Each structure stands twice: as C-alpha cells, then as structure tokens.
C-alpha cells in the first residue's frame, strides 16, 4: 500500500489493533476521575442556571429579556445561529472530508459529530424559548387540524424548522451508523452482564461480517453524500432568516456562503477547543496528534479568510449599491454605538486566525487553544453584530433603540453551555470518543510503526 513519505504519521506510538481498542476504550472503563466530577458539577451548575432562566422566561414572559419594540431578536437568535454554526464541524468533517478521502478525519470525526448533535440540541433550544407562547409552539408543525389551517411555507423560520430537524436526524443516524461497529466492540469487551445487555441492544446485533461492512461502507458514503449538501443547506437556510428580510444589513445575497464558511470556521474552532482538552485529559495524544490539529488550523485559516473577505464585500456592496439605508447600517456597525462589538468581531475573526500562517503558532497547542476560543468569541459577536446592530437602527430613526441583555438571557446562554458540556462528558463515558474501527482501518497506512515496516 502506498503511503506518502512526506506526510506525518496520523497515529503515533506504534500501536497494534488490540492496543488501539484498549486505548480508545480506556476513558469508558473504571471510575471517572475527579476532574470529570468537577467538570460535570460545573456544567450541571450552569445547566441549573439555565433552568432558572428558562422558568423566568416562560413564566413572566419575554419581557424578562432586554428586547424592545425595535429589537425583536438579540441574544436568543445570536446564540441559536452560533450553536448551529458550531454544529457544522462534525458533519462537515465526517461527510465532506470523507468524500474527499481525508484520512485524518478518522481520529476526530466521532467526537466532532457528537459535538454537532449536542450543539444542534443547544441551538434548537433557542428558537423554542424565544417564542412568546412556547406552549403553542406546536403550531409550527404542519399537522392536520380542525382549524384546517396549515403553516406558512414562505417563512424562513419554517424552513429552519425543516432544515434543523432534518439536519439533526440525518446527523444522528450518520453518527449512529458509524457507532454501530464500535458499540459492538464495547459489547464484546464488556464484562458486566447488564452492560453487555445494554450495549448488545444498542449494537443492533453487529457481527462484523464482510457483507455488513461492505454495505456499511456504502451507507456511510451515500450518507456523506447526502449530508454534505445538507450541511451547506442548513446554514444557508439559517442565513435566509436574514437574507430574505428587508432590514438593511440583513438583506444581503452573500449571506449563504458567508454563513456556511463562518459556521465551519466556528465549528472547527470549537472542535479544537474541545479536543485539545480531551486528548490531554483522556490520554489520546497519540490518536489526536498535532497533525490533526494542524490540519484543522489550516481549515480555520481558509474559512476565516473567506469570512474576512465576506465582511469586506459587505461593506463594498453597501457602498456600491448606493442604498442609503444599507450604507448607514454598515457605517453604524463600524462606528455606531455597537462599534465595540464590531471590532471585537473583526479582531477575533479576521486577524487572529491569520496567526495560523505561522507554523510555530499552528503547532503550539496553547496558542491554538487560545486562538480557537478567540474565534468562538468572534463568531458569537459576528451574529450579535448582524442581528442587533442591524435591528437597532433600521429604517425609521424614530424607532431606533438600544439593547442591553438581562440576567435571564445570560442564564439561557450559560445554560446551553451547561447542557453542552454535561452531554459531552456523558458522551465520553458512554461511547468511544474515537471511531475505533475507522482508526484501525487507517492504522497501517498512517501510523508511524507501519511506515517503517513498509519502507523496507
């Protein structure tokens, strides 16, 4: 088998198959460490804070937020778009990188996909909670009813419902289909009877038969083929929420590609943030290597640059269109009362990722970790800037207002973090964080040990 001599090995430490199984399943075995408990306690606390904020919002009303007659969306939809964006990396890695036969994805796709699912769950929470009458939220589904009334298929918000649901479900089955062989491994390694029964149930009776594998590969490939346009469509449709409206700063045709690249950008940043910690905490450095991290930083440079160009293009288009409202909206972004948010966004999204051009920074885990957090902050502010600064000064100056968040809104945001980390930490205890079978399948071609043997 041909192995590129230039490429760095993807898996280090001269592992054999059995070792791989053992290493990857190690975090699931035994009692969790004290750090795990501390982590779950903190994220559980955040979750409780979110629960309180949810109660306040539902009971007293959206009035417990900082919105007003002009600004109908702020943190809620900012958080929604941000989480959806983060939810893009997983499926992007599994689907698009699979189609492009990028082997380095095998070490990170599982956790990235899990992160995607959790992030979408977090994202989906916001469109629900932002409804003034959440108890009637079911109106949004086109179900037959005695009112003979359906839904409005013209509404991007309705498209969102379909896009998010589809994205979540397809990502879920994609993730699960990939998990089935690994659950089989867990089942077969289980010593405890109950554990064996549960994983046996979840493994769907996986045997590892050649026929199964063959079909499994086909399914994975086609699912990837389906998920790839889906990934692109989700943020495209989310961007329609804004792009199809009339508000200056929203009504922009470049939104779909701009949003998609922004989403991949923030998604990879979040994957980096998580994995840099995870690989350390779970002793998976030999599986999630610097090569993986570097590859991801390269994608961040690319998408970050696209985002940067999009920002500049927006300004250019505002000037070039000659629409005074559009021009004002962009000047207001950069120099208006929310200019600080704009410049945070610019700094974090356009300038900091460019540091990855330097190999030293790219390979310095601490620097990558910090920059990845910067990118996440920047991407949050990007949505904040788009939503709030466009709304707060739109067409009629008589209605211009300002927005300040309240504790309830902070609570909801922190709460989704709580949910995210809680679920992620449960995930690392319950399922293998790295796709065991997939790593094994590339072990020979990509591990350092095999390299030596094949060069003889």
């Amino acid at each position, binding site marked *: 088998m041909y192995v590129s001599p230039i490429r760095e090995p993807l898996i280090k430490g001269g592992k054999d198959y059995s070792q791989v199984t053992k290493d990857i399943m190690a975090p699931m075995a035994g009692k969790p460490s004290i750090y795990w408990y501390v982590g779950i306690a903190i994220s559980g606390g955040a979750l409780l804070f979110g629960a309180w904020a949810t109660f306040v919002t539902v009971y*007293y009303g959206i009035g417990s937020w900082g*919105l007003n007659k002009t600004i*109908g969306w702020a943190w809620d939809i900012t958080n929604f778009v941000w989480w959806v964006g983060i939810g893009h990396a997983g499926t992007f890695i599994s689907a698009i990188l699979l189609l492009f036969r990028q082997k380095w994805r095998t070490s990170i796709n599982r956790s990235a996909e899990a992160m995607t699912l959790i992030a979408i769950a977090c994202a989906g929470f916001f469109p629900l909670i932002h409804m*003034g009458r959440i108890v*009637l939220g079911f109106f949004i589904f086109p179900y037959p009813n005695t009112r003979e009334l359906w839904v409005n298929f013209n509404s991007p918000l309705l498209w969102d419902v379909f896009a998010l649901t589809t994205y979540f479900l397809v990502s879920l089955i994609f993730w699960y289909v990939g998990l089935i062989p690994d659950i089989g491994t867990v089942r077969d390694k289980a010593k405890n009877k109950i554990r064996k029964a549960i994983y046996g149930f979840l493994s769907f009776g996986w045997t590892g038969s050649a026929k199964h594998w063959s079909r499994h590969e086909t399914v994975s490939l086609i699912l990837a083929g389906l998920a790839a346009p889906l990934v692109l469509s989700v943020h495209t449709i989310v961007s329609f929420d804004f792009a199809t409206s009339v508000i200056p700063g929203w009504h922009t045709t470049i939104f779909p590609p701009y949003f998609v690249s922004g989403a991949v950008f923030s998604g990879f940043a979040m994957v980096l943030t998580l994995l840099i910690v995870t690989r350390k905490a779970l002793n998976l450095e030999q599986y999630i290597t610097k090569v993986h991290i570097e590859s991801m930083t390269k994608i961040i440079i690319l998408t970050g640059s696209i985002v940067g160009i999009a920002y500049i293009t927006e300004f250019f288009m505002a000037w070039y269109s000659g629409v005074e409202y559009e021009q004002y909206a962009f000047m207001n972004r950069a120099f208006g009362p929310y200019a600080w948010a704009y410049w945070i966004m610019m700094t974090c999204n356009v300038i900091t990722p460019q540091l990855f051009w330097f190999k030293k920074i790219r390979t310095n885990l601490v620097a990558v970790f910090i920059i990845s957090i910067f990118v996440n902050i920047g991407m949050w502010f990007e949505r904040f800037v788009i939503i709030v600064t466009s709304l707060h000064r739109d067409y009629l100056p008589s209605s*211009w207002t300002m927005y300040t968040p309240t504790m309830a809104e902070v609570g909801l945001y922190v709460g989704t973090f709580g949910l995210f980390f809680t679920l992620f930490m449960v995930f690392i205890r319950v399922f293998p964080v790295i796709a065991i079978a997939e790593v094994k399948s590339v072990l020979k071609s990509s591990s350092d040990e095999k390299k030596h043997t094949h060069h003889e």
Partner: protein
Amino acid sequence: MENKYFKSLEELSIDITRETSEKPAGDKQFILEMQQEVKKMTSGTRRDFLKAFGFTIASAAIATSCEQPVRKAIPFLIQPEGIIPGKANYYASSFFDGIDYGSVLVKVRDGRPIKIEGNTLSSITKGGTNARAQASVLSLYDNERHKFPVFDGQETTWEQADEKIISQLNSIKVKQGKVVLLSPTVISPSTKAAIDEFVAAYPGTEHIQYDVLSASGMLKANEKTYGKAFIPSYRFEKAEMIVSFDADFLGTWLSPVEYTKQYIKNRKLTSGQGRMSRHIHFEGAMSLTGSNADHRVQLKPSQQKLVVANLLNVLRGKMGMDAAFLPASPVEVEKLADELMQCKGKSLVVSGSNDAEEQMLVNAVNHLLESYGTTILTDVHTKIRQADDARMDALVQEMNDGKVDGIIIFDVNPAYDYPEREKFIEGLKKVGLSVAMPVLDDETSYHVKFICPDHHYLEAWNDFEPMTGYYSLAQPAIRPIFKTRAAQESLLRWSGNSADFRTYMAGVWEQKMFTKATAEISFTDFWNKKVHDGVFETGEKESGINSFNGDNAFAALNSIKVESSEDSTDLVLYTNVSVGSGKHANNPWLQELPDPVSKACWGNYVAISPRLAIELNLKNEELISVNGSPALPVLIQPGQEYKTIAVALGYGREKAGVPANGVGQNLFGLIGKDAENKKYWLSDVNISTTGGKHPIAITQSHHSMEGRAIIRETTLEAYLENPQSGNEVRLEIKEHLKSMYPKAEFDGLHWGMAIDLNACTGCNACVVACSAENNVPVVGKEQVIMAREMHWIRIDRYYKGDPDNPEILRQPVMCQHCDNAPCENVCPVAATTHSNEGLNQMAYNRCIGTRYCNNNCPYKVRRFNFFDYTGADTMKGNRYDPAEMTTDLRRMVLNPDVTVRAKGVIEKCSFCVQRIQEKKLKAKTENRMLRDGEVVPACAQACPAEAIVFGNLNDKESMVSKYFADQRNYHLLEELHVLPSVGYLTKVKNKTV
C-alpha cells in the same frame, strides 16, 4: 351615526353596580346577558382564551371527558326599549372638565360607555376631540373614585350627610356667617341657576370661581379696553396671518380643538385653494403650536411684553400715530409689522400671557390691525375661563383669617394646584363646614369634613354654554356606578329643593332655552331633539360691549420696562396635552401619552436648551432643582430658548391613585403672581444640581431623519410652482419598482388611508382614541423606558436644522397595511396574512410570538406583549400591571369587539377592522353599497385636524383615492416596494427659504 337619547332617568335601567359590589342591588331590571358580556371581560374567559390549549394538552388524552366550565346566559327580566344586547348605542353628551370643552358622543355597549367620539353636530368642536376628552371614559372607571359620601373619614349615607350639612348651613345662616362655593369656571346655565338658588337660600353665600389655568389677565385686559371682563371668540380660519405670543392654541390654550379646526382650514391644501395662512410664533419653551408654526421665534417670557409693546409701537408708527419711547426689542419686529400691515383685517395676534397689561397691548395691536369683527368677535364670548385670580387669593386670606364659616368645593383641587397650597390647607382647617364634591380622589378631599362625591360626567345630566349662544347637553350614558350624586343636586337638596337635577335642568331649559327655539313646537319635542343632538345653537350675541378704549393700553405701553437682565434664566410653567393641570393624572392612558414635543411620558422634567446644558454641564436625566423646587430630571430640548427652562405642571399628585401618585413633581408652588394675576413664568431662577439621576421615559430617542426622505416637505412658494415639489423622488422611485411576481389585485374593497402632514398638528388625540378603541394595554413607566410602549399609532417627531432652533416635523405612523407586506412572508404559522380587502391581518390567537414579523417590519409598528399586561395570560400570578389597568372596574372600558391580547403575542393597528366590519354589515342589511366616509377608524374620528382620511382605494371617487392621486402624496419608504396602503401628503410650510 345613530345616537339615542333617554327620555328619563328611569328608563336608563342599566345597572352595573352589581358588578362592583358583591350584594345585588335592588334593581331587578337587569340585563344579565349583558352582565355576562361584562363578566367575560372583567373576570372570566376572554383573558383565559388559551388556557385550554396551554396546559391541558398533556392530560387531554387521558381526561377524555374533561368538561368545559359552565357558562351562564342570563337574560333581562324586562328588555329595555332601544337596547339590544351586543349592539352599541351612541348618546350625545358634553365633556367639560373646567379646562377643555368638547361636544361628544358616548359609545355605549351593553350598558357600559366604552368610547368617546366627537359630535359632528357641534359647530364649536365639529366632531373633533382632544386626548383628554378621548381618555375621559377611562376616568369613569377610575379605581380611586369616591364611592360613597363620607363624613369625618367615615362612610355615611346621603340622608345623614344632608341632614348634618343643612343644619350647619342653617346655623351659619343664623349667625350671618359666610359660605363660599368654590368651583371651577361654571358654564352650565342650570348649574348657575342651582347656585343662584343656593345663594338665595343662604344669603351669606359667595360663589367664587377658580381656574387652575387662569385667563384672569385677559379678562381684566378686556374689562379695561372693552368695559367687560370677557374672552372674545377667535376665528383662526379667517386669519391669513397669525402671530402668537406663547399662546399654545393648538394644544392647551383656551379651546384648542375649536382652534385646531379653524386653523387647519387655512392650512390644508387638498381642495386646491393654493393658499395658506402664515403662522409666526414667539415662545421660550417648545410648544405644540410653536412646533407647527411657519416661523418660530425664540423669546424669553420675561421679554415677551416688551416685544409686544415694540410691535405695537412700530405699528403705531407705521400708521402715523405717535410712538412711545421704548427699550429696544430683543427681537426684530419691523418685518413682522410690515407683514401684519399687509394682512390688515385678516390677521390675528394672540398672547398666552396671563398679564393684563400684555393682553391690553395685544388688544391694541389687534385693534390697529382691524382684527376685531373679522378674526376676533367681541359679541360671542368664550366662557370657559371666568375666574379672577385675585378673588381666590382673597378667599384664602379670608379663610386664614377665620372669616369663612363654610366652604363647598366643587370639583377643584386647590390643595394640590393652588400656588400656596399649604396656606389654603391651613385656611381650610379654620373653616367650620367644609364640603368637597369631587369625582375622583384628590388632595383636597383629605382636608374636608364632608365628601359628597359628584357623578362622573358620563353618569350625569348637565348643560353647558361654552360660547355665547352655543348650548350643549350632557346625558347619562350609564347609571351611577357608585353611591354618588350630582353636585348640583346636592346644592338643590341643601337649599331645600328636592327636585332631581334632570327635572330641574329640564325646567331651566323650558324657561330659558325653549324660548329661543325656532323649529320645535312642544317642549318635549325640543328637549328630545336637543338631548339627541347634544347641542343647541341659537346664534345669539352678547350686548353691552363698549368700543375699543386704547387709553389703558397706551398707558401700559408707556410704562413698559425691561423685566429681566440678559443673562438671567427664565422658567416657564406649562401644561401638556396629556395630564394637563393634573386633574387627569390618574388616567393611565394620559400618563402614557408621549408629549408631542419631547416624546416623554410618565412624569415631568426640566426642559433645557442644549446651549445652557453645555454651559451648566448638565446631562439628560440629571436631577436639578429650580428655585428650591423638588428635584427633577433634566431633558435637553432642542428649540428651547437659550436661557429659558420649562417644566410641566400637573404631575406630582399625592392622593390620586396608583398610576399618578409620585409620578413627577408638583411645581404649582412656583407659580408667581404679578399685580393681580397668576404668572406662569419666573425670571432669574436659580438652578442647582442635587446629584443623582432619574430616568425619563421617552418613546423616541433618535431625533434626526438622517437625511432620509421620511417626511417630505416643501414651501408654499415651491408648491405653487410645482405641486410635486419636495416629492420629486417619488417619480424616480416609481420607475425603479419591479417585482418578479404580478401585483396583487383586490376586487371590491381595498382599504387605504391618507394622512395630510400639513394638517396634522401632533396633538395626540388619535393615540388615545386608538388605545380606547383597541384595548391597547398600558405598560407603565419602566416598560416605556425599556422602549416597549404598545401604542398602535405613534406620532414620530424629527428635528431638522439648527439644534438650537430646529424645525419640527411630525408624522403619524401606524401599520401601513402593505400589499407586499414583509411581515406576512416571515410568519411561520400564518398568523399574519393579507385579506382580500387589502388589510394586513393579525390573528392573535394563532401567534406564537417569534417576533420575526416585528423585526422585518420596516416601519416598526408591530408591538409585542412582553409581559402579561392585560391579565389574559394562561398563567396565574405573572401579571404585569403597574397602572392597575386590569382591575374589574378598569376592565369595563374594554371594547368587547376587540380581543384582549395575551402575553407573548404580537399586535398592531388593524385599521379598526371591527368598525369596517360593522359598517359593512350595516350596508348589507340595508341592501346598499358602502358609502365613502362611512367607515371611520378611531384615529380619524378623533382627529381635530381632519388629517386622516380613510376609505376604499378601488373607488376612484372616494376621498382617499383623491388624496392618493394628489401630487403631494407619497408612501413612507416606498422604495422598498412593500406597497403601503397608507399615503402621506407632503408638509408645506409658508415660509421663505
């Protein structure tokens, strides 16, 4: 409009006391089906309308036989004639609160008055109303109304109270003591008769009138120049040149609705007359009228008299009379004098000052300009201000000196609004018999022995003569809700007349008015007709007015001196169009009504010019004290004269009720006094910062149009040259409007509204009318600060030009009912859609509250129920009601035809669809087409300036179609191609550039 009348009180058998008191009253003729309707509104189901879907959904499948609550339908015992449950009647009545007069129709639905409309039969108000008249229906349901007679703080019965009062009055009579009847200006002939009867019964009685907003100076000036203390009537429609010295005649001066109607006649250009009056306004503070002027000149109040004197002097000079030697005018008056000379006989100069000398000078100016007889009529008097300030001052002194033995206070509140209120209260303590007859709770009634509550005007019979020969009637539109009694009836009772006031009044009318009738033969016919119409206009004239005597005026001219130094700061105490003198402070609709100039509500503030603010290093909302007054926040008001600050009166009520108490500060104490009259300004005031900040609730925080073509304007000159001027951009925009879809067409009806920006003065009557008609919730100060006010119609106000003396442009904005509505496309659940009549519909019960429509509305006219403001939410205990608008009593004002919106839904202007539907149904039952002008939304109905026209755009003959075809017409943000159904006509100012 069909208005009904009552033949007698007995027929008025709708009783809602049972709603408010637990024990059923003795009256069995009680429509309970109506009550059911009331119940629905007040306590029951309307607010619960989503309970079923809210929380029972989970248990629904299991609790298969879950029963609905049983609803009762309780009919009349005997159905009263003319009352059909579920159908509104209109009764003519009159609104007079001692300040404003208005002839109105009261809409009564199922026994409850729910809306005030203007009465088109009146030739004074001509169907117009102001904000306070519109809001007055809510004060009927004020939580703090006096509910029963009180003696010494204890509830008592009318019999006992009468007995005690009569015996005390008799003992005063025996010892030949003095009794005072303290009332606001009385313009009711029958009340005057009742007072006369009382005075006859107790000879030591003196009737003293007390005006909070006094015109005493004017009365005295006319006494000196015309030999009689009166206020003439004005004819602004005859004036081609109007010069006003701080007379806010469109907002608060004397009879603003009347003057608006007149003023607008010469300002509208829609009938193609191509002529406009020219309006020049001098003032220090920024008033509604000043902001509508063609040319506004900043002038400190302390210099106003000097300017008037100079103007007179110059005019005299130009007319070849000998001029006096005067200090120089701070503003140039030569050109003004020239302009006035050109309009001789067609000009009008008015002054809002309460200074007799200044008013004399104004009289002299008007006399020179030959205004008398054309724009000012001395033989028709405006009677709504009659009080002599000096008399009230003397009374307070007498009371303190122990010379008054008894005082009967009508619905006035000197313990709050008299400048030396402490002294009044002290004096009141020394009066042996003190009786107050208020409608609402007030400060004065805390210092009297007897409270004998008067009916609210909607519960009472009354008659008025606001102007010579213009009579009007008020009839009860509801049975008294509480154990109250008409004040006049109390007087009659105490003077030994047991007649009820209706009978008494009919007697007075038979004697005095019937004789003036021409058409009717029997008094019954006459009476029924007049009660039905609400007005009776005889065209009689006053006599005994001397010809102009200029001596006093000339003497005044000669004695003019400079009243304040250049660098002194003046304070103007004004009243605004909402709470006014403070009498209506407990009316949440008025409290939440933004000031037409500053857009602030819920409290008063010190308006200060931008230059002075910089000079004194003051920022918005910083607390300052003026001459030691209670601390008030600063509001930097562009257009304010550099050295003039202004504060609104009418705030700082202490005993009015939850909405009003503690809102703002009471500055009546700062009112000064010249020789004999109250002075509503002070010079050389001392400003000190007290530290700290107090938030001001402002509904508009950005004041510039940012160069956008939002309000398009032009000058008269340019308009005459090119009617499209100022609106040229429309042609260009029209060319560029393209769509991938064909334009939607509407067969039959396509509703549209046109607003003449030249007519709109910004008086805010429409805003209150809309709130009343559409159950718009009141959200309170905190929420307004959060920018969450709920008004469906707002009046945008922009400043233009020099920030020290900007022009003001106003524009009423409500849902534009776009035919390509951006809001409709984005609602995921189809809660907002387009009707086949071109209405942008909002189905509250379908709304799930995503607020996407609100975001996507370029006009930002959609409103979101952030909290449970109305009590309509499914959850208990989360109501947000700082103004106590959801008590059972207050809820009676709700319009049963309009859904009360729950927490979490969007609402907005519906073009008063309930009125459209009502009139369509009427046309159908009468087997005919709708007539143009038949459907009138609440805002258009209330507008005293006739600025709003509504109708069918498909009917090319309709008024609105003609407005739309006018070259001045444009649509707001039409470049977005949302195809609004609201058109605006460009603002034209009569000024030279």
